[in-house]
């Protein structure tokens, strides 16, 4: 419990209605998509960088942990108040400050919902490509803090590739800016890149400067069914080695197809053991040629069937198969661990085989789908927590999955981050020397360890 004096200080700073201490509010800010729960002592809703700075000054003086939170949709517990203290919600900082159509740059506050931003820039013929699955509700601040990915990353890159400047409140309560609205800038350390994906441990993002692109004229979507995962994986490398970079290259393995068969209106033949959703975008005339070339290239690789969408509605129908995955998985088992390993894309089939072997070894269903184009596989370990011993076996399986990805030159997280969920496994990937380097940065910037403590590293 926080001292009433501190609550009064926060109320005096932000206004009483923007400081919540009711148990009901604490419950509502105690969770994220990991389904773990930690009650904070207080939730604050600042409206500006200045207010955030004042909160940080109070917290720093009183040594109270602060946990920044966007939409609370993270998969690794990055925003969970694991040590009580203050949850700092960015929900009120939700303005699109400026869209500069001349320089193709936008400035936004962290609480802006990703899809809302995309829609606004698209109205102006512009394009913000990062598209995490949660884009309809996750916030740009959270996307930057976690460096969110998404299907379109194959062609366009991840969130950090579009962040060119930030305004940040430091753990000690100073307001700084990094980078800016220019496409180039090499003065000083690149703090923008350091802060992207730092999971709210080094500073609280209060403004974001984003790079925009012209909106592609058109897109085409293909759903290709293969008789094996090897055919699908070979198709990915064949397309890319022929110098075509599609916008998205999504895959689903055989187990995933089995799950979604009942959940979708699309007919999926029995001999389909892998699916690729290939989308290309750009100039309309150029697209038709590209689709034709892709079809020629992949045809010999065990293609069972190809369906091509011409209109946005048809495209949506094809994507529906991918979107139905999440709900259909629950039919396998009630609980899941959604891991997001990433391997070099040529290693995807090998990784899938490793995962299948792990599933068999621990007798746990594991369903794989994800972004084949960048080797980012969502490994879904499906368990029933109520079955004795299943949770322990799942944890062993997860560790083996991570080890498997690292053996292939991969990483244990492509887009979800570390948070608390993957913190125990950090030593598998990061050497003690590299970890010490990172911790030195944290120590220098946050001497009292009050900003999102206990995330990324166990300490």
């Amino acid at each position, binding site marked *: 419990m926080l001292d009433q004096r501190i609550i009064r200080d926060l109320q005096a700073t932000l206004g009483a209605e923007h400081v919540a201490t009711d*148990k*009901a*509010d604490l419950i509502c800010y105690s969770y994220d*998509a990991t389904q773990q729960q930690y009650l904070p002592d207080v939730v604050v809703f600042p409206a500006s960088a200045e207010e955030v700075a004042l909160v940080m000054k109070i917290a720093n003086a009183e040594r109270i942990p602060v946990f920044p939170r966007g939409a*609370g*949709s993270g998969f690794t517990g990055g925003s969970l108040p694991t040590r009580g203290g203050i949850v700092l919600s960015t929900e009120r900082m939700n303005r699109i400050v400026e869209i500069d159509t001349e320089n193709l740059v936008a400035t936004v506050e962290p609480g802006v*919902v990703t899809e809302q931003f995309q829609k606004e820039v698209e109205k102006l013929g512009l394009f913000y490509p990062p598209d995490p699955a949660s884009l309809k509700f*996750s916030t740009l601040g959270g996307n930057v803090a976690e460096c969110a990915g998404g299907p379109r990353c194959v062609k366009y890159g991840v969130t950090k590739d579009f962040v060119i400047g930030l305004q940040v409140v430091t753990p000690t309560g100073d307001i700084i800016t990094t980078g800016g609205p220019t496409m180039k800038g090499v003065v000083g350390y690149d703090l923008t890149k350091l802060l992207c994906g730092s999971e709210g441990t080094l500073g609280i993002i209060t403004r974001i400067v984003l790079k925009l692109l012209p909106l592609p004229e058109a897109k085409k979507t293909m759903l290709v069914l293969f008789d094996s995962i090897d055919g699908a994986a070979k198709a990915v490398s064949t397309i890319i080695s022929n110098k075509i970079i599609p916008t998205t290259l999504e895959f689903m393995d055989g187990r995933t197809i089995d799950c979604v068969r009942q959940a979708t209106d699309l007919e999926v033949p029995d001999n389909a053991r892998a699916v690729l959703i290939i989308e290309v975008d750009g100039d309309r005339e150029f697209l038709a040629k590209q689709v034709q070339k892709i079809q020629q290239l992949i045809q010999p690789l065990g293609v069972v069937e190809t369906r091509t969408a011409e209109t946005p509605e048809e495209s949506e129908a094809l994507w529906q198969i991918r979107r139905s995955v999440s709900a259909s998985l629950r039919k396998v088992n009630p609980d899941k661990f959604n891991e997001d390993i990433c391997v070099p894309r040529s290693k995807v089939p090998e990784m899938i085989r490793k995962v299948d072997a792990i599933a068999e070894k621990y007798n746990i269903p594991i369903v794989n789908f994800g972004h084949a184009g960048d080797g980012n596989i969502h490994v879904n370990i499906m368990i029933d927590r109520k079955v004795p011993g299943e949770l322990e076996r799942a944890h062993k399986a997860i560790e083996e999955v991570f080890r498997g990805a690292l053996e292939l030159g991969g990483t244990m997280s492509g887009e979800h981050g570390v948070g608390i969920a993957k913190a125990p496994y950090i030593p598998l990937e990061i050497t003690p020397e590299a970890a010490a380097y990172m911790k030195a940065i944290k120590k220098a910037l946050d001497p009292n360890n009050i900003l999102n403590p206990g995330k990324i590293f166990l300490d």
Partner: protein
Amino acid sequence: MAKLKNLEDYRDAIEQCVKCGACRAHCPVFGAERREGRVARGKVALSKAVLDGEIGLEAKVLEDLSQCLLCGSCCAGCPNKVPTEEIVAAARRRIAEQQGLSTFGKGVAAVLGRPKLMNALAKTGGALSSLLFRKLPENSGLRLRFPLPYLESGRTLPPLSARPFRERHPERIAGEASQPTVAFFTGCGINYMYPEIGEAFLKALRFLGVTVIIPADQACCGLPAVSAGAGEVVEKLAEQNLAALSREPVDFVLTACASCNAGLGKIYAEMGEPFEKLAEKTRDIFVFLVEMGLPEKLAELPSRGVKTRVTYHDPCHLRTRGITAEPRAILRALPQVEFVEMENAGTCCGLGGTYSVYHYENSRKIGAKKAGHIEESGAELVATDCPGCIMQLQDAINHAGGRQRAVHILELLREALPEEK
């Protein structure tokens, strides 16, 4: 008799929530007031905490649970289809059981089943509708949906009809022997406030030769009482309607109000037998008209020179039950209509029955967004399939200074159909 479920019965459904946050994209209340307690995920978490005894029914919990339109948008957009509106309704019943009904909920329970009084009052004249509203018996669905605080809120309300719709017509209007027989569930909105929608309904069914039964003793569907947490009232109304609507054999029970459709079609289905059979027979008027081939028949009517530009607002209680194509199919087929889609046609207008009474400010905010989209569409009329939505849409348009009119699709259909001899 079967009963509504308790909060405990929803424990498994509550456990289905994986806290992903997808509901944040769909909840109109959250759109107006961005706080986690306002969104489905928060309300499900609070319901779970109540069930687990981690929190009592304290003021903040009641406030958050009251901040729900019961529109079902969250469930429609939920990957796991967690029925938050059912969970919130069950939580409100639990609150009513433990802490008693709110003042107006008490009134509802006390004067149930006095339709004669309601009619007598209605007859005294539509000119004094605000006074009349004050005198409406409290078992009226209208009273439940739009109780007194409304009248002092600056809200623009339509006048109350001098003669209720059901009094204007016999209980049976015979059609052709080859055509189906249907019961018309008028709902309170059509009976007392918009009888012209009822007249349009009859004209359309006469055009098709359908036999219509209008049971005089039908009651409010009960949806407003669901919203208020008055479980027993819902059950009584359901029994009264079951008796009234099963007296004569009918092929379908038709509604021309989205809320009534959800009341009969969804809430009664949740109550199990014998209400389930009534729920199965319930059809939205436009689903029925499309099944009867009305769009094809409309296509044979002569085209009109100058067309009116009309957009469509999806009432939540139809949209979340998958009824979106049929009302549009009828609109598109109307010879005098140029149909245009508006942006966010499927987002709530902000009425939510009792919601708009207790949370008029948020209701106005949600409505204002809608009015903006109607304006942007360039339409002269916004058509819909729910008297409640018509009232809210017109109020939102009036407050925004717009010139559009909110109408029921049936009113447009009445205009299009040939004059009867």
